[in-house]
């Protein structure tokens, strides 16, 4: 039985309180880390094999290493709690139930890269999360974990919270930096990458909070322990947010590499009403949909890529046999079209056109040419946009057409759902 790491505290009463955290070994990792050199710490994170949990899976150690070493250059750590990806609700749990674990990770990361300022960016709708963040930061200050001369180490760190205003794109790291600066959330041109020119023009380390929550454990238990969990290229524990037609939706912390079957049937209690599983989105709305055939694929970066999908945020959306896949694509595409920042043409206008085609088909007004048109449209968007949103937004349509083409054809021919589902929303 796997012992939870990141979620080990969340079921305790008052888990969000600093005294609870301290009572269970909290802030010990900071004490340890402050005695080590930044080089040592970077090396530990690299050896742990930790990859970003925000979606892209970039190796964390490498990112730390890219931060400029010159101590005269002020640096910043930006903490991504925007969590807008449909299906994902792990970060919310972490802030609401165990914010100190993340703060500890932030302190260690800041110390390592030489940042004296950390900004938390949090999704505007996370009302409780905002409160918990603010309280936790205040308590950390009070206990001397934040502020001047932390634990007598001579290291200073100021930390504050900034609320978003309800845009999915603000989770993309450069749009988040723009938003933090008080500007509209439009992604920035890369390069320069945030590690070179980030918030207010300063080198900035951006991390998802689940990534940061892993840090204290790597320090305390060692990188080798961390790397012993998971698969060849995906190390450590991961919180899987399981939603959809399962009996027990929720967050499950398991080693990377756990199969979809185990997560859905053993942990999430199987399919609701004993129905058959039809489709599963493995990593949040922007990752390509898989089918029952893929149930034995391990949930890891490399294994999901091999079957044409992505680990993304590890948010598993389960759909049973009653689900209309055209409707799934339609709804998700509607979301992306609504969330396009509008900066570039293929995403701003293409997403809208794609949505219109899907809606047409779903409503029984599709034309035979629509299927190919949708695919061609998707190809025109994928890879031509300013930011990764373009490649993300075509995934629902493209993958459902690929996996469930017959459902689309049924819609086109019979002007109704194969699954018998009625269209809504």
């Amino acid at each position, binding site marked *: 039985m796997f012992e939870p790491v990141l979620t080990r505290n969340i079921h305790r009463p008052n888990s969000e309180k600093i005294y609870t955290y301290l009572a269970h070994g909290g802030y010990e990792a900071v004490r340890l880390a402050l005695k080590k050199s930044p080089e040592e710490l970077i090396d530990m994170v690299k050896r742990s094999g930790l990859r970003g949990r925000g979606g892209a899976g970039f190796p964390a150690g490498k990112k730390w290493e890219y931060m400029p070493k010159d101590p005269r250059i002020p640096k910043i750590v930006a903490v991504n709690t925007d969590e807008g990806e449909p299906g994902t609700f792990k970060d919310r749990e972490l802030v609401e139930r165990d914010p100190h674990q993340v703060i500890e990770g932030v302190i260690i990361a800041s110390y390592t890269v030489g940042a004296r300022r950390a900004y938390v960016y949090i999704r505007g709708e996370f009302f409780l999360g905002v409160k918990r963040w603010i309280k936790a930061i205040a308590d950390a200050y009070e206990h001397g974990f934040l502020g001047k001369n932390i634990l007598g180490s001579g290291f200073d760190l100021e930390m504050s919270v900034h609320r978003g205003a309800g*845009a999915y*794109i603000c989770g993309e790291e450069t749009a988040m930096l723009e938003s933090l600066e008080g500007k*509209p*959330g439009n992604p920035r*041109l890369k390069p320069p990458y945030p590690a070179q020119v980030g918030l207010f023009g300063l080198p900035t380390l951006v991390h998802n909070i689940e990534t940061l929550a892993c840090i204290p454990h790597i320090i305390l238990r060692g990188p080798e322990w961390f790397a012993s969990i998971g698969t060849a290229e995906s190390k450590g524990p991961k919180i899987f947010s399981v939603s959809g037609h399962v009996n027990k939706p929720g967050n499950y912390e398991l080693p990377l590499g756990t199969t979809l079957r185990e997560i859905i049937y053993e942990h999430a209690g199987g399919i609701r009403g004993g129905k058959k599983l039809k489709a599963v989105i493995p990593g949040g709305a922007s990752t390509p949909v898989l089918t029952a055939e893929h149930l034995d694929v391990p949930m890891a970066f490399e294994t999901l890529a091999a079957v044409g999908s992505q680990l993304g945020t590890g948010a598993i959306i389960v759909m049973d046999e009653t689900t209309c896949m055209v409707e799934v694509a339609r709804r998700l595409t509607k979301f992306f*079209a*609504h*969330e*396009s*920042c*509008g*900066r*570039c*043409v*293929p995403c*701003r*206008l*293409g*997403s*809208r*056109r794609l949505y*219109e085609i899907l809606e047409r088909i779903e409503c029984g007004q599709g034309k035979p*040419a629509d299927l190919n*048109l949708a695919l061609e*449209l998707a190809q*025109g968007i994928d*890879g*031509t*946009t*300013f930011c990764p949103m373009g490649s993300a937004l075509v995934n629902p349509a493209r993958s459902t057409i690929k996996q469930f083409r017959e459902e689309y054809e049924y819609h086109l021919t019979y002007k109704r759902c194969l699954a018998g589902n009625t269209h809504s929303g």
Partner: protein
Amino acid sequence: MTNKMITLTIDGIQVTVPEGTNIVDAAKKAGIDIPVFCYHPKMKPVGMCRMCLVEVGRPVVDRNTGEFVRNEDGSLKIQFNPKLETGCTTLVSEGMVVINTSDKVKRGRKDILEFLLTSHPLDCPICDKGGECPLQNLTMAHGPGTSRFLFDEKKHLLKHYPLGELIYLDQERCIQCGRCIRFQEELVDDPVIGFSQRGRSLQIVTFSEPGFDSIFSGNTTDICPVGALTTADFRFGARPWELNAAASICQQCAVGCNLTLNVRREAAAGGKVVIKRVMPRQNEWVNEIWICDKGRFGYHYTEAPERLTQPLIRKEGELVPVSWEEALGFVAERFRQAGKGLLTLASGRLSNEDLFNLRKLSEGLGGKIALYTQMSGGEQVMQVGLAKESNLAELGQGDAILVIASDLHQEAPIWWLRVKQAAERGATLIVAHPRPTRLEKFAKHVLRYRYGDEAGLLLAMLNSLSAKRPALPERVSTLWRDDQVQAAAKAFAEAQNAVIFFGNEGVGLQASQALAQACLNLLLATNHAGRPNNGLIPVWQRPNDQGAWELGWRPLPNLDEAISQANAIYVVACDPAGDNPTLPLTPDFLVVQDLFLTATAKLAHVVLPALPFTEREGSLVNGERRVQRYYPAVPPRPSARADFTITGQLGKLLGIDLEDRLASKVMLRIAAEVPAFSGITYTALAYAPEQWPIIGREDLYYGGTTYENKQGIGVQLPNALQQGEQVTLTWPSLAQATEINGGLLAVPVTKLYDSGSTLVHSKLLDQRRVAAVLWIHPDEAAAHAVQEGDLVHLQFGEASAMATAILDKTVPQGVILLPRSAGIPLLEPCAAQLKVVERSYER
């Protein structure tokens, strides 16, 4: 800036460009077109529209040796990015291979265009941009013939949304390229428009009051790649392909921006050819591809119905129309009688040819000439003016610019822009002014002085640089010890190249002579004269003041006296009686030659109708001493004549040999007589070299609708130093501080949108025009019991005026500022007494 050159291959063509160039520009230089919408060569790339996607390959580098890997045949091994890259945001690198014509690239472009068109109204038949529209042109070249999408899903939005009263937005046509927003932010520092909403709801909005509050707003309509932005002046005025183009020069300030006047024969105008719009014409040495809104919208006086159409002679107290023959004969006869008693008073509104003929006529009769101006210093400019072969665009890191006594933003907007850009390129900007101006934000050194101390300040700068310190008046004698003055002087002296702009805010005619001399001294002593990109630039109030100086015209120190001594006065292109109602203008014989029946004309015995610049040709010398020619755009009104023609015809009657038909021939005479003009011909002025960026009709998508310059960039005059003459430092005599006798010092200031007799005819500027106001510091106002909005009676000497008080903390103490050409007869700083006559209760 590095000078490193990079060689790459684009579509098989080898191109060598400086490091830091992007792919789009590199291709353009090689004659290859990569289509763009959001990119503009004058602005930073943003990669928004995705139209410029190309395939990019880079040589593979061996990690161990750092060398390029080669194929068996010796060629570089190239690795292509599987994704297309935007040519506007990707910089060239050595050995790069760019493919602009592959199917993948073509498909990408087609997709982008198709996306754009799905949301575009395609109302080309009623669009102002139709015919010169980058979206139209690029769709023809790269787009799909038909759309695969439904049309009923198009957005329906506002089609006549006024961003302000000058610029309208068609929300349906906007393709959200952001060029307009970036122009306002990056180039002209007026971030008054921006995007609101997101995604497909993205819209341009204004957040200023009044809307789109920027004196450069018209330029956004040129660079907008669709017909989304239009000017209130031109929208729905004509189709671009019906327009003819005439090259011209803006006459509104001393910058001399190059223009194209678009004209059309029009039924609404009774079948006459009329001007439909004013567009910038590229001249990278003068205005690049921009003009200010005064230049764009201020031309309407040329077509005003109030213009004089016939010669008038006063008969029995009334001015009555007569034939040209009668008028000229009468004037010639009276001028002959006046002989030495003739005074010719003319302004820098006239062309070189006009001024030359006028001077020759007057000299031939033994009379006197006087330049009508409130600012002096043209001689110093002839000595150390901005040297031939200069271009402000070359000033940057290591160079310095000093601006003194001028609010460039209001007085010469394009110079403001170019100075700002030089500062952004790293030039050290020193702004010396008694009050804050818009330029200060970009300055490294801000020197604040009291009105009247401008020359003293410059002399103090000079004193701080040398051990020999000539005595200065007490007021300024210790200034050289001031840290800021020293630092600015040092920066100026150490600069590689340095330029001084001087104006006349707070400076009277005589004091401006001293100011110019002080500028000359500073330039000469720091070795910043006689070399390209160094020298003195006068911020004249009229477009050809410098030309007048070059051609021997000088202001008279005591104009009143000269006027009272003259038997006959020939007033050309100026309105002394309008400017100063107390002027004793009552000679035996007064001739006025002008466009309008001015206050002076109303006193005249004979009035001769002249032609505006749009109906004739001529040449001007701008503040940078560039001689530029303008061409006729519309046929002349039947019985008005060009100034040089009228004068020439008078000359004929008086037996004085003058050219009266061709301006180009007058120029030949000027060139033969005035050394600085030697070699200048109309052909030389029409020389039009290649310019970068490439702009113009064939290339609309790239730079906008600004006109390509095919009609000449003009010729800069060599200054005295460049002509091998000696120029020496002389110590100017500094004017005494003005006695103010318990009142306040009233200082006339120039505002771009004035109510002068020319600009009033541009009705669309009414809302932005400065009124008869006085600006006063709140403390000073309190001391004089003046409140915001009060109507105040002002007395200066014999003249008086009414003005509404505006309290403004930026006004120095002891001073009131009054706008020029707003109905307040104040030409020079002088003491004023204030009396509130009507209290404002609107509070």
